[in-house]
């Protein structure tokens, strides 16, 4: 089974598709972590929120593309409010307190979603344009999944050029490298952090809508993907765009092939991968060089 090229190709595409979703989800986490040494454990909750808002928008307007465009904005707005109301207030406290507060929000988010949308599992239909399938080595493969892969690549390119070629990108890079010096020479790292945070939230929302037609939408979809995203951040190396991309690719592939070959042990293998990286390269595969430790 393993050596069958069709099987391999299909699973490879599935792996890429999961990697693409994971990349959307973990890039915000990773860059914010690099900037502020803070990880938003409610990031998965924002992803779930994106999926549910997308679901409601599709039901209300009958247009997937409208949901595709608006849900990330709505999630970014939620993220912004959350940042202003809670995180900014806790800036003086240790990052640990911020992390714990976001952990409490997972509970709040889960029950809010249950309250608003119920306990049932929902599915989102793929847009008509992408509802068909294509032939891959004689096997049919849903077009929509190829779209997900393409979207991940596009976002990666946009972020890459955004970080390398724009002023905001330069501020973010400077902030990740050495926050104190960047602040001292007059860069507004706080504002850059806020924008990056909101953008990361929007990407999490985008991942949620996009995941709708592939994975089912249910309360609790947040935590399983959050764990994968955390592993991506740890494996790739926090703070680095390339790290998030490489980590997402690795985790996406290991998870996909693991689930097919040995479903019982898939999560154990993933965890072992993370442990291995932590032991051999504690800063992740693509560590960000920090000015001070």
């Amino acid at each position, binding site marked *: 089974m393993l050596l069958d090229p069709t099987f391999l190709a299909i699973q490879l595409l599935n792996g890429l598709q999961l990697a693409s979703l994971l990349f959307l989800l973990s890039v915000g986490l990773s860059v914010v972590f690099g900037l502020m040494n803070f990880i938003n454990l409610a990031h998965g909750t924002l992803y779930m929120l994106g999926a549910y808002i997308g679901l409601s928008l599709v039901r209300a307007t009958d247009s997937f593309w409208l949901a595709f465009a608006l849900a990330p904005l709505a999630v970014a707005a939620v993220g912004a409010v959350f940042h202003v109301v809670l995180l900014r207030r806790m800036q003086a406290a240790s*990052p640990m307190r911020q992390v714990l507060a976001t*952990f409490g929000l997972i509970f709040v988010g889960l029950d809010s979603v249950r309250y608003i949308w119920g306990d049932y599992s929902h599915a989102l239909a793929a847009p008509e344009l992408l509802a068909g399938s294509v032939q891959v080595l004689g096997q049919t493969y849903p077009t929509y999944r190829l779209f997900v892969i393409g979207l991940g690549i596009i976002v990666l390119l946009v972020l890459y050029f955004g970080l390398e070629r724009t002023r905001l990108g330069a501020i973010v890079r400077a902030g990740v490298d050495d926050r104190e010096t960047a602040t001292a020479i007059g860069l507004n790292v706080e504002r850059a952090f806020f924008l990056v945070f909101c953008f990361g939230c929007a990407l999490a929302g985008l991942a949620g809508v996009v995941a709708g037609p592939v994975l089912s939408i249910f309360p609790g979809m947040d935590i399983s993907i959050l764990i994968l995203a955390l592993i991506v951040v740890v494996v790739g190396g926090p703070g680095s765009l390339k790290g998030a991309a490489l980590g997402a690719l690795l985790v996406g592939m290991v998870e996909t092939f693991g689930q097919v070959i040995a479903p*019982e042990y898939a999560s154990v293998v993933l965890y072992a991968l993370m*442990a291995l990286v932590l032991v051999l390269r504690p800063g992740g595969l693509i560590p960000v060089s920090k000015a001070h430790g």
Partner: protein
Amino acid sequence: MMSRETWRAGTAILLLVAALVSWVRADYFGHELLTQIAILAIFAMSLDLLAGFTGMISLGHAAFYGLGAYATAAFNLMLEWSPWAAMAGAVVVGAVAALIVGSFAVRLSGVFFIMVTLAVGEALHAYLFKSRAFGGDDGLSGIARPDTSSIGISFDDPAVFSLVCVGFACLIYALLELVVRSPFGRLLVAIHLNPSRVRALGCPVSRYKLAAFTLAGAIAALAGSLTAQHNAFISPELLTWTTSGEALIVVIVGGLGSLVGAAAGAGVMVLAMHHLSGVTDYWMFFMGLFFVGVVLFAGNGIYGVIDAVRRRLGGAAH
């Protein structure tokens, strides 16, 4: 001014008296609640050793709790060990698992440690959820409590079993109190406050943290083992992130680094869950909000308030 330790021990005795009074007055259901409180107190105190004293905030502590429950079930049902032997075996399994996980996890600091412990717990949960040998998501049932008919009492009586669990909670409190007062415990606090200085003094910081992590894992496994015997049933539910989260909430609401706070927090948590879940299906919403509030405003939780009284009294005496 009374020393911090004496004040803490006094609070512990008050808690024990409260537990005993409620034991005397409780009906069948009250004994069940008391059992739950005692078990959660053991679990939360083990987490307090990590989070409160050593500064290692774990979001995957339920892994060892669940492992203890699963080991008890496996030893008791599959290998047909006696309940006492299964319990002892479970503690050993918890210690060994914590030793393995800790051997690399303790090297990580702060946020990294949180992420990795969360991931470990979820990985183990995912494994047990799918494992056919351990009953998958249905779990296993029929775990026996110790047979003490030879001395004329039955552990199957909720009144007896709740008293046994309270007894275990007292033992664990005493053990942990000895640990945190020992030079070893002082060193853990020092590591929490300033790891680089402790390292500079020539102490192997990682090894001390690993020892604390292993001890906490073993105690969590004991709590898991008691839960398995209490419910006569185990499921992967025991290892979910919500279980770890609830324990952390108990510790933070009770007051980090106070041991008795964790025990008091366990009481508040079980009673609040019991009453809230009767009123609303969405009690996790309120629990989460409460948690955020405690993290945000009341730094030291319930025990922080109790300790403030001690300082006030001390201030008046001078």
